[in-house]
């Protein structure tokens, strides 16, 4: 390729990058300004691209029902609980598959775990609803969602952790064995710190998936426990959707994952480098 056409490609790619950025940001921009519009302004025949009046009150209005704040807390508890469980279980299994592929049940078992993520939701929803209904914790509880979300988060955690553990040098563990550490202690002392970035990025993904889940929550919880995702559709006035409040609340709900990502971005970028040939 000549120098000139190379420059042309570079320019085109940069333009594409810019366009994509615009495309990415426009809906978010719309979400943002809608969150500060009045209800009437959101329903104009000709939409406005800049709020006529900034209704900062929308941000507090969503908490008119104080239990709405509780929904964020509930979501947080469920997402965090599920992430911890997924990560612990996923790391154990991922480690076993990475280090002792044959003794730990082999590829078939690993694939069975992974395949659980592909279950169509309905196949879990209906039977689990009846099952949990009969259980002491019932359907409308933290535990029910924490357990249910394991179905899609644990396979992901297992699989990604397996990739990370495979990349971690085996020799360090061997050195720890020879220092006299039992496998469990060697794992905690040596291997765990090495895969920490990977673990953080897996945790982040699991947390986002659990935090944002809607279908299961919609069917299972609602009275004792409410996640924020099922609260958002409740911002209506009669048959009219209160776009401004829905957007305001979703904006608030975006803060925790975005903040986490910004805080942990270094680990995310280092950690998610799955199975690359490293130098």
């Amino acid at each position, binding site marked *: 390729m000549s120098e000139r056409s190379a420059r042309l490609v570079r320019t085109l790619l940069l333009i594409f990058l810019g366009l994509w950025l615009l495309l990415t940001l426009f809906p978010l921009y719309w979400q943002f300004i809608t969150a500060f519009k009045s209800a009437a302004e959101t329903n104009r025949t000709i939409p406005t691209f800049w709020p006529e009046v900034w209704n900062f009150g929308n941000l507090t209005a969503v908490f008119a029902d104080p239990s709405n704040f509780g929904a964020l807390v509930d979501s947080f508890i469920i997402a965090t609980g599920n992430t911890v469980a997924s990560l612990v279980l996923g790391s154990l299994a991922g480690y076993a598959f990475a280090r002792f592929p044959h003794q730990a049940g082999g590829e078939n078992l690993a694939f069975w775990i992974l395949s659980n993520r592909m279950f169509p939701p309905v196949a879990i929803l209906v039977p689990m609803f009846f099952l949990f209904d009969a259980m002491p914790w019932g359907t409308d509880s933290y535990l029910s969602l924490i357990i249910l979300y394991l179905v899609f988060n644990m396979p992901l955690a297992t699989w990604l952790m397996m990739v990370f553990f495979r990349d971690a040098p085996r020799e360090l563990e061997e050195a720890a064995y*020879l220092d006299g550490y039992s496998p469990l202690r060697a794992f905690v002392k*040596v291997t765990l710190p090495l895969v920490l970035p990977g673990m953080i990025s897996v945790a982040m993904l699991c947390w986002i998936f659990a935090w944002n889940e809607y279908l299961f929550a919609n069917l299972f919880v609602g009275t004792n426990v409410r996640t924020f995702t099922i609260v958002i559709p409740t911002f209506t006035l009669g048959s009219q959707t209160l776009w401004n409040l829905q957007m305001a609340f979703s904006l608030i709900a975006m803060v925790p994952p975005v903040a986490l990502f910004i805080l942990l971005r270094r680990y995310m970028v280092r950690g998610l480098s799955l199975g690359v040939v490293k130098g």
Partner: protein
Amino acid sequence: MARLQIEGLCKGWDFPVIDRLDLTVEEGEFFVVVGPSGIGKTTLLRLIAGLESPNAGRIVIGDLDITTLPPYQRPVAMTFESYALYPHLSVFENIASSLRAQRMDAAAIRTTVTEVAKLLRIEALLDRRPGEISGGQKQRTALGRTLVAKPQTFLLDEPISHLDAKIRHELRQQLRSLEELRQVATLYVTHDYAEALSLGDRIGVMGRGGLIQIGSARDVFMRPRTLFVAEHLGQPAINAVAARLADEGADMYVRAGNSGFGFPVVAAHAAMLAGGDRAQITVGIRPQHVKVLRNGEDAPGHHVIEGHVEIYEALGANGVVVTDAGGVNLTALTSLDRDFEHRQPVRLALQTDAVFYFDSETGSNLLL
């Protein structure tokens, strides 16, 4: 009693790597295994450490059969060729690792680690991470981690081979003087023959499948059992010349191909070589036994032949001259202060009583 005994040890993957290996390393003995890389030296150590499981055979330390024990229950400590230091821990914590595994109390750990660090002269580095220290320092840290463990067998895998010459000399000195190593069985693996000869109480030369020869430094160097042993020990490598033995008058002569290369066999050797198949042998002449004569110098007791210089190179403590002597390439060792021109004619003095004779087919030493 902490002697290391290995009986009939076997291990192979796509092909046999260790084939029915027997070895006993006594308490307090420093045993060096030397051999080319990829021959299975590290595999031997890993089998003893329990990082691989053998296909057959037994490993006993003292009275304890450890063949089926997991590595963390074996009374062994090992250094890895790549050091295998924990990158996220300080040098101090790396050395303290095995003490922490034994749940020793903090004060005792501090004393022990400081002591070892002082011994290895890394006490100033204790707070650093492995990423921040040099290769030699890493090596000493790895050694320290092994030393504090107080095992019954030390396994050292190429611990100093990849370091600068200067540090190598220093660490060789240290290894020799370490009391800890003198109380237990030590198995030391290296590809560097000089290290092996210098350090080993006994030396085992490893070839395909196992140890080809076991003996003292002078034994393996001066009385190699096979051509492989002779070729692996020594740098530059021994001159191996395909030749035949010919009776010329009363004397026995070595002749190589159709070239003019040849020399008389000393009487003592001739007696041993008499009879047998003598049409195809390999003559081994160590470069240090080929002397490049100065002008007018003569060498009594040597056989002098003519040749010319192909390459001259300074190699560490010596100069190396590759010569063409009647169609045969002969490498000779000289002192460093000499210099040679390309194709300069020289006279070479062979110390014929130090020549080895090997069977070309089996490689075995015909003088043993």
